[in-house]
């Protein structure tokens, strides 16, 4: 193009040095520019695309498990919502961590700082743009929650609670990321710091169940905003507990968010600088000390809590006096063998009869499933049946009790299902004779379903719709700009 070598000789007549105020706040201008950079630059769409693919895979796996009756809808919705919030927070953190240090690296911060704009407004505009992916992530999640809820009322609860808690936490984590990038000169440092903080918050939620109970575990859960949110959601969505019982778990997310906002907009915001700055040796040492202490605490917690829990479970046993009393009990079963497909179930009945002259003690009936293939997986009966054990208070002489058992065929293979009757021992130093029924030879043939729970269109459709949306946005943008011109001058 010829224009590149013909500089115009007419200077622009501007309106002098007088101050002009268009009334548009700086934060809004920065927000619009950042939004454009974030979405048109591709970062937010790519992260959300990855998010939707992961969510699709997770939903598909869950729906497959649901078909095998492994997970009830409430739990699937809860798990999906938990994952959505965790990934949403991660995305928020990444975008936040790039907000300032990324501009430093790309050298775009200097030109912004050279304008007569308030530093706090620059930070606020950037913050608003950085939280923009969360509502989209939530919108992407809703169809998955809908399909996984399988018509259960949990969906109506999950969406508002997920939106509320995610919307409280996501901006706070964005703010956390921005704070990390505030004092970092490079993106690498701020991303690493942000990721470290994120893992620190996420770690307690991954501790073994035993470590999450007890005074210390419970306190840790209540203080950690992510763990508290998860706990609250699990109680309300899965266990149908009343909100009033668990509202204290909402305090830490709210306090955490408030703390981040105060730090970001009141303390750090006004002092936004071109350089991230170097911490003094003292603060570097303090930071390292805190970091190592936290890691050490978690290591100790991880290593000791399960052991303590085990110790509690393993009470020292007094050698019991072996007074085995033969009970004149009988158990019959109404099925000898059955072949079913994976995902199907069988229902059988047991009849326990007291043939003796005296009333029986309390009886416990326990169902067990044994894999006949020595190389096969060991069966956990709790995964296969909602009725692992049933109880009889007592049977009068000649009295019978009938019980119904349901067994879900989870995995293919050869199994033997049986039930045992366990009379209650007469005391701590006594035991009893266990009586077993005859077995049911259960053969489970394999079954695969390509579209479990009708989830496949969502699992594939979500990312596809997102890709189409991205293409639409790019095309819209291309109309506004001249894409034809390459560089006309040598570099």
């Amino acid at each position, binding site marked *: *193009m010829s*224009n*590149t*070598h*013909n*500089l*115009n*000789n*007419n*200077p*622009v*007549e*501007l*309106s*002098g*040095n007088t*101050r*002009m*105020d*268009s*009334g*548009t706040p*700086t934060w809004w*201008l920065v927000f619009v*520019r950042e939004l*454009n*950079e974030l979405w*048109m*630059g591709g970062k937010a769409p790519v992260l959300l695309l990855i998010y939707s693919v992961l969510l699709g895979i997770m939903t598909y796996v869950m729906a497959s498990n649901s078909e095998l009756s492994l997970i009830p809808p409430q739990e699937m919705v809860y798990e999906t919502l938990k994952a959505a919030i965790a990934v949403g927070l991660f995305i928020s953190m990444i975008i936040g961590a790039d907000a300032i240090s990324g501009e430093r690296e*790309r*050298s*775009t*911060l*200097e*030109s*912004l*700082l*050279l*304008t*007569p*704009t*308030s530093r706090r407004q620059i930070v606020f505009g950037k913050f608003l743009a950085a939280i923009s992916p969360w509502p989209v992530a939530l919108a992407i999640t809703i169809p998955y929650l809908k399909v996984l809820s399988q018509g259960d009322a949990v969906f109506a609860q999950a969406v508002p609670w997920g939106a509320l808690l995610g919307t409280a936490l996501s901006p706070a984590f964005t703010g956390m990321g921005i704070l990390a990038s505030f004092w970092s000169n490079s993106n690498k440092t701020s991303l690493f710091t942000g990721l470290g903080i994120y893992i620190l918050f996420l770690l307690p939620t991954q501790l073994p169940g035993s470590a999450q109970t007890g005074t210390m575990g419970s306190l840790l859960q209540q203080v950690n905003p992510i763990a508290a949110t998860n706990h609250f959601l699990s109680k309300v969505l899965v266990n149908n507990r009343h909100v009033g019982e668990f509202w204290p778990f909402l305090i830490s997310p709210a306090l955490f968010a408030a703390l981040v906002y105060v730090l970001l907009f009141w303390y750090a915001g006004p002092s936004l*600088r*071109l350089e991230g700055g170097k911490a003094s040796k003292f603060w570097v040492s303090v930071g390292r000390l805190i970091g190592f202490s936290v890691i050490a605490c978690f290591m100790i917690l991880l290593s000791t809590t399960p052991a303590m829990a085990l110790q509690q479970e393993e009470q020292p046993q007094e050698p019991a006096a072996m007074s085995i009393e033969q009970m004149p009990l009988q158990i019959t079963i109404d099925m000898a063998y059955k072949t079913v497909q994976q995902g199907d179930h069988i229902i059988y009945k047991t009849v326990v009869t007291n043939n003796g002259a005296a009333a029986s003690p309390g009886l416990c009936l326990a169902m067990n499933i044994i894999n006949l293939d020595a190389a096969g997986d060991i069966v956990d009966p709790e995964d296969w049946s909602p009725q692992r054990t049933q109880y009889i208070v007592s049977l009068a002489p000649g009295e019978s009790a009938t019980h119904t058992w349901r067994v879900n065929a989870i995995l293919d293979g050869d199994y033997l299902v049986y039930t045992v009757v366990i009379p209650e021992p007469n005391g701590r130093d006594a035991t009893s004779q266990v009586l077993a029924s005859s077995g049911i030879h259960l053969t489970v043939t394999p079954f695969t379903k390509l579209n479990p729970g009708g989830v496949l269109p969502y699992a594939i459709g979500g990312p596809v719709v997102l890709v189409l949306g991205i293409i639409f946005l790019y095309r819209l943008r291309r109309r*506004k*700009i*001249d*894409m034809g*011109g*390459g*560089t*006309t*001058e*040598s*570099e």
Partner: protein
Amino acid sequence: MFEKNHPPGPRSENEVLVAKDLRKFYGQREALKGLSFSLNAGRVLGFLGPNGAGKTTAIRILTTILEPDAGHFVVNGISSEHPEELRRKIGVLPESLGFHKQMTGLECLVFFGRLYGRSAAQARVTGLALLEEVALDRRSKSLVGTYSRGMRQRLGIARALVNDPSVLFLDEPTLGLDPRGQKELLDLIERIARERNVGVILCSHDLPEVESVCDDVLIMNLGQVVAAGTVAEVIGRTRRSAMQGNGIRIQVPLPAVAEARQILAAVTNVMNVTPAGDDAATQGPPFGAGWLRVEFADSTIVNLTENPYLNNRVLDALIRAEIPILGFEAERSRLQDVFLHLTEEALA
């Protein structure tokens, strides 16, 4: 190319930037040791110094990116104690440029225009006019990411002018440009200074460039000013104080070299006449030519500015002897020599 010597402007009138005793410490190290200078409207000041001289610190202080530990400065009546107000009076082209590549050239200027308080419509009009001024109007809707280095530099200058500043800071504006692009940009800078009556501070390591476009020059070393004044003043002052090597070079036909040496040696104030370079002796068909270097007796007194008639006398002697003069070149100190001399002196 280096003949430009603007007359010194009125120092006390029309000052757009006055800096007084600016100091900056990084820990125990004093990076800036009391910088004081002033800049008049419509003049271009070359801000020079080797790496680590304190140039960047000074510019960052003057552009309000850094706060000085002592001293203050005033831009067009606004004190450095009011940085937000002061930023309305300055325009900056940072070395790194720093454009958002997802914006078009026009969007970029509109964005910055609005940050200075213009309405969307005003900012657009200003942006379009500035793009025309820097000859980017035909690429106004192209993404900045597709611009060449030269185009981005010009866009950077347009961005720096978006608030109609009183002082313009340009950090290495011609870095990475080809000679043609360099010349065009320097012409643009000169025109901006003159026509907009803007005081321009030009930071550059390209000393011929500074010499060609700047009216004044300020040389820093180890955090302090080692020379300041008009370009001619700085060169002249330094040469008088220490520098050598003022004379002329004359090219004559090869057969006349010996005779010319004899004649020139007899001219008053000529101390020495020597052949200047073997390679020159073989040039100049059909008979070849040779360069002679004429060194004057007292270089502390004689120089081209103060005694131009000496050159006339030298040439007149050759003309009278009917020796053809094929070439003539007046040797004089250049800013580069001054810079090297001053910075080496400070190191010593």
